[in-house]
């Protein structure tokens, strides 16, 4: 968004924004995703199958379609994100039948997997994308930026009704 940043590459800017939010990120090649998730995810973990044709959580240490008890007990929840905003460190999580909304919200750590090519520059670009999604009939997203937080208890605390920590895994695109 700010001019100084516009020239840098979106992945670098995205990661910079994330680090401003104290949110760690990892960049991996597509075939390294399983291993990377092994490292990042805290068990027990639940997941919502990724919204990408070529990537899956099948090999990851997560339970898909969890039971309510598993959802409650999970330390991590893994979801995909089809859009990120470089200037803000924001990821879009879609409300789908796979349960992304609750998987990303209940566990104390939310791990979001995003493709490098899906990172947009700023909120204006994000809205171009959102408009197109709405037109295509996909109309429920949350734009999540960092962990949940509150100042209502007298100091800033992270992790209220949502996760206390967020980790973003950026998957490099196949060349």
């Amino acid at each position: 968004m700010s001019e100084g940043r516009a020239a840098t590459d979106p992945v670098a800017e995205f990661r910079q924004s994330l680090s401003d939010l104290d949110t760690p990120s990892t960049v991996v090649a597509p075939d390294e995703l399983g291993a990377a998730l092994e490292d990042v995810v805290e068990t027990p973990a639940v997941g919502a199958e990724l919204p990408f044709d070529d990537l899956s959580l099948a090999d990851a240490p997560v339970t898909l379609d969890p039971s309510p008890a598993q959802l409650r007990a999970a330390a991590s929840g893994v979801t995909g994100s089809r859009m990120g905003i470089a200037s803000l460190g924001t990821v879009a999580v879609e409300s789908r039948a796979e349960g992304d909304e609750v998987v990303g919200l209940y566990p104390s750590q939310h791990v979001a997997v995003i493709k490098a090519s899906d990172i947009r520059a700023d909120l204006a670009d994000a809205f171009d994308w959102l408009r197109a999604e709405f037109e295509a009939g996909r109309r429920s997203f949350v734009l999540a930026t960092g962990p949940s937080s509150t100042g209502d208890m007298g100091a800033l605390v992270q992790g209220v009704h949502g996760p206390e920590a967020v980790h973003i895994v950026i998957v490099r695109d196949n060349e």
Partner: protein
Amino acid sequence: MSDSQRPDADRIRTLLASEGDEIKENTRLFNAGRYDAVKDVGEDVHERNRTRAREIKEDAIERLPELIHQTRNAVEANGGTVYVADDAADANRYIAEVAEAKDAGSVVKSKSMTTEEIDLNEALEDGGLEVWETDLGEFVVQVAEESPSHIVGPSLHKSREEITELFEREFDPDEPLDSAQKLTAFAREFLGERIDDAEVGITGANFVMAESGSIALVTNEGNARKCASIPDTHVAVAGIEKIIPSVAELEPFAELISRSATGQEIPQYLSLLTPPVDTPTVDFDRPDEPGFGGGDGERDFHLVLIDNGRRAMRQDEDLRETLYCIRCGACANSCANFQSVGGHAFGGETYTGGIATGWEAGIEGNDVAEEFNDLCTGCSRCVNACPVKIDIPWINTVVRDRINRGKDPGFDDLLVDGLVPDEEESGTPLRKRFFGNFETVAKLGSATAPLSNAVASTGIARKAMESVLGVDARRDLPEFERTTLKDWAAERESRVADPDRRVALYPDVYTNYVQTERGKAAVRVLEALGCEVVVPDVGGSGRAPLSQGMIATAESKAEDAAASLLPYVEEGYDVVVVEPSDLAMFRREYEKLLDAGTQERLDEGSYEVLEYVFGLLENGADADALPAGDGHGVAYHSHCQQRTLGLETYTETVLDRLGYDVLTSDVECCGMAGSFGYKSEYYELSMDVGETLAEQFEPEADERTVVASGTSCMEQLDALLSPGTRHPVELLDPVRR
């Protein structure tokens, strides 16, 4: 009258003591955050967003009936239901019926001012439902059985220690809750269980998008997402004014809302939901069943759109703008009075802060707005804060006027009607008419000075003024000059043979009758810089009656002032104004009081005195004609309306150029703001607000000359520090050379 004000004074004193510190700290934090966030994104970008947001709101409210219709069609096509409720009772009945149909035992809610407005919790609880607020701030207020004290931060008035005490008392936890972390963890656990168990989740909606039937929810905690997706039934409650055409129009608001509210670039969670959503329902009663417990619950969605007075507000030319409000709370945070007393004084049944008058007048009625309307001093600091550019002080003035008119005339009135030359209907409170007619008082006071000053300062006179007019005896009164600025100027020969420019110096009421020295200094400064100066025979700008809500009187003053000044403008004179609040009249309020052409010509032909000096210097006038600053220190307090107009930099720059070392105050307001600080019940509040300014200037006052642009700021500074505050133009006076 004084009797009915006593409780106010007591209430304000109590709130200053009990809630003032927390409110101050928190609102100032938000406010500073907003300043930083706006700077980060760039003033230009921010301004563009504000303009766009305003346009969208103007259009949406204009087309409201059509948008409601479109919303209904879209939500129904998605499989949800829309109910447009006429009033609170209608809305509450409908929501209770939805809960009943679900056999609900409990309901969880995320933060929603609209449900506060209709007292939904009480209505549902009366029907035997358990209702839990899941936003932590709302939860605190619910447990404490209090009302929210701020639109964005409902529990802003409570310290961490007070919350600990409250929770330990109410919940008797196993471990002490002696940190924000522990309190948050406790609330998360407690409310988490209730969310999982509830049959119905109720949210507000920050925006409703007509085209797709979507809602946008802005939260940091994540509770709104849970309330919307965990219970099978989701009820979203929103005022009809929340509708915008489509997701495309959401963009400027997404940019503005958190930046204005808390100084965040974007909220933690900006949810765009188009219910019923595809997220599987979670059945916590079948804990071990995969697929979220079977995930086969039937999702049900109800959008309850509430009128409750809004359609009437839409028809009301002056209140209409209130409907553009996006409830960011920036007007409260930027308000010096609010920073001291918070929403428990500066608010009505539901809404708090600057815009609360508009909301409460529209939704509850003028009687509710009356309880706090006078806390708006019209300083206009909120005007630039508002992301949708609502003229909040104007709304407050209009409502004040309506309140005045609603009063029954009493004996006082019959007396005053004959004495004062105003345009007000009988019933306008005596004190308002006294302050509103200050020009008449000043004229009389000046004609009989110095006797009038001597009499006014006697104990008996002060006592009488306090009991009859509510003028606080602790305040020094202005001292009237026998020779007015106009008289002085009329006696004087012009000193400039071949003038570069011709100036009509506007003799505002204060400069003409009280602060004549600053007027004389202005004349000499302008002459030294090559201007021919005349002081025309023109009356008050209407500022005094306007701030008392006496619009008809202000309008007639405005017409007279314009009629006297415009011939000068037409002859090529520049109108120069010493008192910033009067210049603000020409630039801002005259838009409402005069026809557009007249206002524009006067506005374009008028300048603030230091703005004008700056222009002269820029255009080659010789700064050496003025006394040099020689590195001398100046502590400068600009004026709130002057800052709203972006004019304080001219004074700073001119003083800087002349070689002064300038320190500018960075407080929101001096606290005096016109007649406000004279009023008995507000005296202490006024001093509390002024304290911040005094704190900044006190250590400097020995080394620096204290200067202030506005009359009331000068009076306040004189009361706070040792007297001797001057107008900046007095430093420039060539007689000092």
